[in-house]
């Protein structure tokens, strides 16, 4: 899946692959890493990954530069993403994770906006309809993976703007 992904300037800067001891410098470095991970996953439509995969992925391993971010530092980047709400561990061992280039709350907002715009409050949708239905083509959330969608709807549920329900052939959601 070799997309024409535009690497940021940091990717070609060797110090990017060494965790910086200076606190202020590190802050900037980690921010750049988080941004890179999210845009990389977005373009490659990768919603989940294992740590092992991550280590060998071109994301953390710049073969041309002969630099790779050590696994301890990768863990630190992932923790930053988790704190920001863009990452969720899928297992206790922290070996695989869900990566959401938009936070669930953000997705929830977009979905709800579309629902309101199209005057479909109080309607019920299946999850499939939302992500793959004709009506949502052209919307950003079209093609969204189920795991992320679910979390987006859970966020709306928290705000009492939606309710996840069980339908005969799967799950669905009712918007208020």
């Amino acid at each position, binding site marked *: 899946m070799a997309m024409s992904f535009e690497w940021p*300037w*940091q990717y070609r*800067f*060797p*110090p990017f*692959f*060494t965790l*910086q*001891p*200076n606190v*202020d*410098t590190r802050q*900037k*470095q980690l921010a*750049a890493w988080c941004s890179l991970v999210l845009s990389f996953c977005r373009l490659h439509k990768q919603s989940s990954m294992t740590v092992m995969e991550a280590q060998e992925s071109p994301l953390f391993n710049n073969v041309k530069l*002969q*630099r790779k971010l050590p696994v301890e530092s990768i863990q630190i980047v992932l923790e930053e993403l988790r704190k920001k709400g863009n990452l969720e561990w899928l297992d206790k061992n922290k070996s695989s994770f869900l990566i959401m280039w938009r936070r669930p709350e953000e997705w929830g907002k977009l979905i709800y906006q579309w629902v309101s715009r199209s005057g479909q409050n109080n309607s019920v949708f299946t999850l499939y309809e939302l992500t793959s239905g004709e009506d949502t083509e052209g919307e950003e959330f079209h093609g969204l993976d189920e795991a992320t969608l679910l979390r987006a709807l859970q966020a709306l549920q928290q705000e009492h703007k939606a309710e996840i329900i069980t339908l005969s052939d799967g799950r669905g959601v009712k918007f208020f």
Partner: protein
Amino acid sequence: MDRFVWTSGLLEINETLVIQQRGVRIYDGEEKIKFDAGTLLLSTHRLIWRDQKNHECCMAIPLSQIVFIEEQAAGIGKSAKIVVHLHPAPPNKEPGPFQSSKNSYIKLSFKEHGQIEPGRVRAVGIVGIERKLEEKRKETDKNISEAFEDLSKLMIKAKEMVELSKSIANKIKEKQGDITEDETIRFKSYLLSMGIANPVTRETYGSGTQYHMQLAKQLAGILQAPLEERGGIMSLTEVYCLVNRARGMELLSPEDLVNACKMLEVLKLPLRLRVFDSGVMVIELQSHKEEEMVASALETVSEKGSLTSEEFAKLVGMSVLLAKERLLLAEKMGHLCRDDSVEGLRFYPNLFMTQS
């Protein structure tokens, strides 16, 4: 002497010659007999004696007849001898030079050099080696004693040198008016490279802070010039070596040096002790601003794209230790960032901060 039998002297089958010696005289017990110059041959079977002048005259004793052999040391007017004690002659013995003898032993004396010691043929070699070792040991002892003699002489000379430099230093002190402070310090530093004058010793000032304070003042005077030569900063180990090399005697312990240096700032002397985060200790001139050096370090690194401590040290003409400290300080101040890989530790300008 009646144990001998005449023989042709030819060796029998299986009989081999072990050793032979010329100029051997035989005695019958204590008596000298006519057999005074012959060749003694020791074979695996017999002891043979052949007259040197008359080869026909040849006699032998089977080794089985020999009870035991002993050495008789030489005395005044007497040569060393070998005494051979013999069993009584068997009744059916072949004819020999003597029909009967009252002695049950014979003696052999050696006119020419060397001596046969039957059964201990190799002994001469071992004794020789032992003798050589003894000689060598005595030689070594002698060399060592001589060497220490030279050292004692050197110590006397050194004492004279110290006395001389002390007197010069005192003269400088007295002539304080004619010589400037600057020149005095410079002269003292020249003395320093030869042998320090007035080393501040524990005896003069006692131990403790008084001592360290005096020492600190002395260090300030001594180190000014070397520091200026080295760009205003020196590692404490460099200082230690410099000072002690000059002192020669009355060496400073590391603890005394550190304690004296700790007093530098307190005493408002023109140098100070500085400890970096890494634990490295340096002495810098008060006028030296390491933080300003950082700015120039950044320039140097930027010019070259990136540098290791060694590369930077070489470019700037600093010791690698101090070069590394400067780069680390620059990193701490946010001017540089690091690339740590199998290729080593390199420093880059901190683009994380300067670039978008």
